[in-house]
């Protein structure tokens, strides 16, 4: 530091009246956007992290689609690419689930390293950190979806029921992602250590996808396992988007399996109703 600190800094805001509701709203939008941009800049400056999150699902498509796929049965379909058509919607949803890990470790890093403390000591709208994060994650999910859709088209996956239904399916995927983002935010707030977050998320994520309709149709599983799989919230979204994309593998005669579309909306909303208040509560507890 060569020179003395100048006093030319903009003066802090005047002591008069508290900001109006409109100003607060503007600040909330502004602050959230700054936080969103921050997270997007992370992706640009450290693309390796996102690439790792792409590699895994693409690997699953290749390994399951071509290696195991030949031995996999899809109820009601027999063509060569049938299993890959069945698999891709599952991989879309699986990718959203793994995204939770990125959310949680990002938040954990900020809390653990005191960056959150700096934000909290500034006149920043308190919720901006999390709203910014969830918006950034949504943009990131769009990027992931784009890559996976291209990858899917290359291995013979297609949507068969028009672009409208396909977009609706993407909408359902993103809705699930938002719910999972909030789950990740809560996890990051509870476990402020990125390494620990990874140790928790990845070993639990795989069984969660295995015991669902992501890789195998639940009708083909032993009784009770099939029932658990059908009630897995991931299965609802996967089932719903298979229906909307017109992909094979719609099966099961249970109530949940037949109401996949409804459940694909109900489950994420239910998760949001649980994880948003818990995250807010946990965030406020940082000042304990």
């Amino acid at each position, binding site marked *: 530091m060569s020179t003395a600190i100048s*006093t030319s800094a903009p*003066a802090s805001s005047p002591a008069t009246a508290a900001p109006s509701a409109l100003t607060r709203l503007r600040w909330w939008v502004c602050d959230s956007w700054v936080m969103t941009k921050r997270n997007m800049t992370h992706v640009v400056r450290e693309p390796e992290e996102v690439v790792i999150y792409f590699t895994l699902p693409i690997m699953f498509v290749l390994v399951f689609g071509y290696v195991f796929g030949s031995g996999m049965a899809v109820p009601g379909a027999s063509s060569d690419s049938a299993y890959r058509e069945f698999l891709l919607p599952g991989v879309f949803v699986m990718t959203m689930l793994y995204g939770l890990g990125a959310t949680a470790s990002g938040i954990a890093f900020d809390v653990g390293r005191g960056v959150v*403390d700096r934000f909290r000591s500034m006149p920043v709208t308190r919720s901006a950190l999390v709203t910014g994060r969830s918006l950034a994650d949504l943009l990131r999910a769009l990027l992931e979806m784009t890559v996976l859709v291209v990858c899917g088209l290359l291995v013979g996956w297609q949507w068969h029921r028009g672009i409208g239904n396909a977009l609706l399916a993407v909408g359902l995927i993103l809705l699930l992602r938002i719910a999972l983002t909030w789950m990740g935010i809560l996890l990051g707030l509870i476990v402020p250590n990125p390494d620990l977050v990874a140790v928790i998320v990845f070993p639990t994520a795989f069984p969660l996808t295995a015991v669902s309709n992501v890789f195998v149709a639940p009708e083909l599983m032993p009784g009770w396992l099939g029932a658990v799989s059908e009630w897995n919230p991931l299965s609802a979204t996967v089932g719903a988007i298979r229906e909307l994309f017109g992909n094979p593998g719609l099966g099961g005669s249970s109530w949940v399996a037949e109401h996949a579309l409804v459940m694909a909306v109900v489950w994420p909303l239910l998760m949001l109703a649980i994880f948003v208040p818990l995250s807010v509560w946990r965030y406020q507890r*940082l000042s304990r």
Partner: protein
Amino acid sequence: MTNEFAVVAEGLHKRYGRSCALDGVDLTVPRGTVHGLLGPNGAGKTTAVRILATLLRFDAGRAEVAGFDVQREPERVRARIGLTGQYAAVDEVLSGRQNLIMFARLFHLSPRAARARADELLEQFDLVDAAGKSAAQYSGGMRRRLDLAASLILAPDVLFLDEPTTGLDPRSRNGVWDGVRSLVAGGTTVLLTTQYLEEADQLADRISVIDTGRVVAEGTSDELKSQIGGDRIEVVVRDAADLASAAHVVEAVGGGAVHTDPDTRRVSSPVRDRVEALGDVVQRLREAGIVAEDIGVRRPSLDEAFLALTGHRAEEEVAA
């Protein structure tokens, strides 16, 4: 701020479960001055700063910063303070410049003003060359400077610095000290915590010595030093067997309470006239046939300050 005091704290209490981090801390800092919070590890310095910077709730007491109650109007406090925490809190992925622009935007500067302010601060904190590098690639001292720059974006009314120079080289440390002085000249009030008596001595108008959550002494640096007892003479003997007789010699010369440390074979005592005492001790040690490895007169260390002010040594607190 119409108030005469930038920081007022009365009877702050803070418990973590069963342990008491703050046990009734009182603090008043007049506007435009530097106040030092001096204390060993675990004394409660960070806790006090976090409470005043609106990061932490407290159990009892009252605190006002920049004229606003910390609990009732935290947002208005936040608009007027800067905080540099004990550990550098910057975004590690973003570059130094991107960090400053982001923080400036979060202080609600326009994008243009934010960029201009970021460049100004990079210049002042000697970070221009590293402006484009990720903060993760910065050295500890550079990160510290970036952290400090981020807390000065709006020339705060009150600046909190939690051990701002721990881990800095002497040049950077002097830079921080100069920076603090010129900020104060511009009207900012500074509350700084430190473990170094010298730092408090250099910067602070007044000092509160804090230990186990309580202010155990308060005053100007000179007032505290006279309480502590000023200069000390210190003798390190070659043979531990001579410790007792060396203690007699030092006591006779110094006339104050002698402190003997068998581990380092060191005997020390307060003295009034440094030069005369030094001559006397050298002569008497020779007469007594005691071989000394080192003899010197020096300022009291924080450790001795603690011994004098609290009746126990600083390290015991850490072990406890």
